[in-house]
């Protein structure tokens, strides 16, 4: 078990800054998710920690031990699980799980013992003699986890392990991953572009963009108090609504943001609630069973790339007609403010949204 410390890490590929000055401290036993769009450098960062890539500059420490160029992947005590699971197709499940132990020249009876221990933990004892091609996606994941865990790694790296599964399997596999991590309590770094996975799995989330970490915090910090407009719109589905300051809500040059699920018809609030009311022109209503998505605009013009959205839970039985302007409102504490230039979070102007900080 060990912490992971990353200091000012750079990785450039032919002038392209895949990782551009990353600092990250992962505590012992913590589950940290690297979240970002494709090409943001999250996988490169992971591969650099694994030792599959050499950093251009900066340092990586695992449990205080410096992992430099002179420490090859096999000497890092790090296990990695790949998107495809990367099982060895010509080996049985036993052969797959035993492979890292054989590479360490472990005595045969000890190999046997460790493999049995791992497969028992994941309940795949009956597949020991099967080949990977005969297994389902979920079973393959378990084999890959077994193979990773028998080496008793100090850190565990996962590169989008759930993206090859269908939506249904994904939920189960996610649950299994989290249970596994809690059981073995190994420091884990998990790369994904799926914010649901990130929110559901991570003790903390590092949101990445263009090789840099934009925000590093717990899921609720990232969701409720995004550090900038990128985090605000990348995390959350539908994304946070951003308004160029209207109605004097905030001073010039400030963007006002609020989550679609906080944007409800005025009638849904109590009289004494501190709300900000907006005239919302609804263009279209999308009925999704458990909820309704509304698409529209504040004021006349709608930004076709980013309509203002509202997300009404099914239990809210107010009828909302399309092609009409309605009175909608947000609790003032749920308004967020960003600098229009830099996109960075700003303190709310005089009193507004203060309570949220408390």
């Amino acid at each position, binding site marked *: 078990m060990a912490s992971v410390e990353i200091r000012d890490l750079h990785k450039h590929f032919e002038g392209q800054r895949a990782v551009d000055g990353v600092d990250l401290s992962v505590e012992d036993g913590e589950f940290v998710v690297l979240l970002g769009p494709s090409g943001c450098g999250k996988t490169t960062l992971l591969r650099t920690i694994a030792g599959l890539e050499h950093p251009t500059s900066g340092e990586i420490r695992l449990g205080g031990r410096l992992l430099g160029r002179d420490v090859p*992947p*096999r000497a890092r005590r790090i296990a*990695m699980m790949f998107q495809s699971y990367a099982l*060895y197709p010509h080996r049985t499940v036993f052969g797959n799980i035993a*492979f890292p132990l054989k*590479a360490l020249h472990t005595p045969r009876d000890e190999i046997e013992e460790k493999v049995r221990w791992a497969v028992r933990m994941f309940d795949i004892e009956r597949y020991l003699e099967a080949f990977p*091609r005969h297994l389902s996606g979920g079973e393959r994941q378990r084999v890959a986890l077994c193979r990773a865990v028998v080496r008793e790694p100090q850190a565990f790296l996962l590169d989008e392990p759930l993206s090859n599964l269908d939506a249904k399997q994904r939920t189960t596999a996610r649950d299994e991953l989290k249970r596994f991590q809690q059981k073995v309590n190994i420091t884990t770094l998990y790369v994904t572009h799926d914010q649901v996975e990130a929110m559901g799995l991570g003790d903390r989330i590092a949101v990445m963009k263009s090789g840099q970490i934009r925000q590093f915090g717990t899921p609720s910090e990232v969701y409720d108090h995004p550090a900038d407009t990128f985090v605000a719109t990348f995390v959350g589905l539908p994304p946070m609504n951003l308004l160029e300051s209207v109605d004097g809500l905030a001073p010039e040059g400030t963007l006002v943001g609020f989550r679609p699920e906080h944007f409800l018809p005025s009638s849904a609030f109590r009289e004494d609630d501190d709300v900000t009311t907006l005239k919302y022109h609804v263009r279209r209503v999308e009925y999704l069973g458990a909820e309704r998505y509304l698409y529209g605009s504040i004021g006349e013009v709608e930004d076709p790339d980013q309509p203002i959205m509202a997300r009404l839970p099914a239990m809210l039985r107010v009828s909302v007609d399309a092609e009409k302007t309605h009175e909608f409102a947000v609790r003032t504490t749920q308004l967020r403010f960003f600098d229009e230039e830099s996109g960075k979070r700003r303190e709310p102007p005089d009193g507004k949204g203060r309570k949220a900080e408390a």
Partner: protein
Amino acid sequence: MKLPFGPITLPPRETFADSESFLAKVMLAPAILYVVVLVGIPFVLAILLSFSNARAGSLSFSWVGLSNYAAVISDPTFRRALLNTVIVTVAVQVLVVVLATAAAIVFREAFVGKRMMRFFLLLPWAVPITLAVMAWTWIFDSTFSVVNWTLKVSGLMHGWLYWLGSPTLGLIAIIIVQVWRLFPFATVIVLAGMTSIPQDVVEASIMDGAGFWRRLFQIELPFLLPVVTVAVLFGIVYTATNMSVVYLLTGGGPADSTHVLPTLAFQRGIEGLDLGQGAAIALFLLPFLLVAAIGMLRVARRSEMGSR
């Protein structure tokens, strides 16, 4: 909403090119014609000739049953040629696979001058075989042998080797030339196979602590196996049926000791005018080619089904 353009005119009805059954026949016809005229008929003719006393230059012949085969089998020169064919074919395949895999590993890495090296690597494949063998006869020449001079100057050898004058060295020379000739093609095939090795599986093995040899033998070679099989099967066909290298290099000599089946068949059937015996000798190549053909078909079918 009204679309801003008028009604679309539909294309005319089915043409010949739309009819798959017609197209299939037309497309297959050249291949079938080729196989029947240039492979099928000569093959049947060879079988017929091997049971006859036909001679080159004469149109009349009569059936002699198995006597050609009996004569051939009792002939020590033939038995030697058969053995030589087996030795050369097997030795060449083993050497080519080892060398081609090694070369492919080198060429996989990025290094300065890689394109240049790849060009040189492919040269033996592009040089006309007669020209190349002429050069090799000089390399192995009894007086001017470059190999001998090199070995002598580097102090590895004190005597003098008469490469093409001894049965064993002659056979070794044949093997060397055949390996030289086939190895570029095999390297290209293995290189192509290497690109199909999933990179994440290789990286997983690196993370799992596998060193170079463990990775090569336990991860990469199993992935290369189907491709290497294809290279070997092609190699068997190329080596076993090849006449020009032996014919030009040793001419079967000294004392008929380095003949292989194709050269012996040519010598007996064409130069010696005994078509019947030549055909019988050539037909002993059939088992080699059958094994190779069946093997290729199996590999092809397996890759078609997409299962490993």
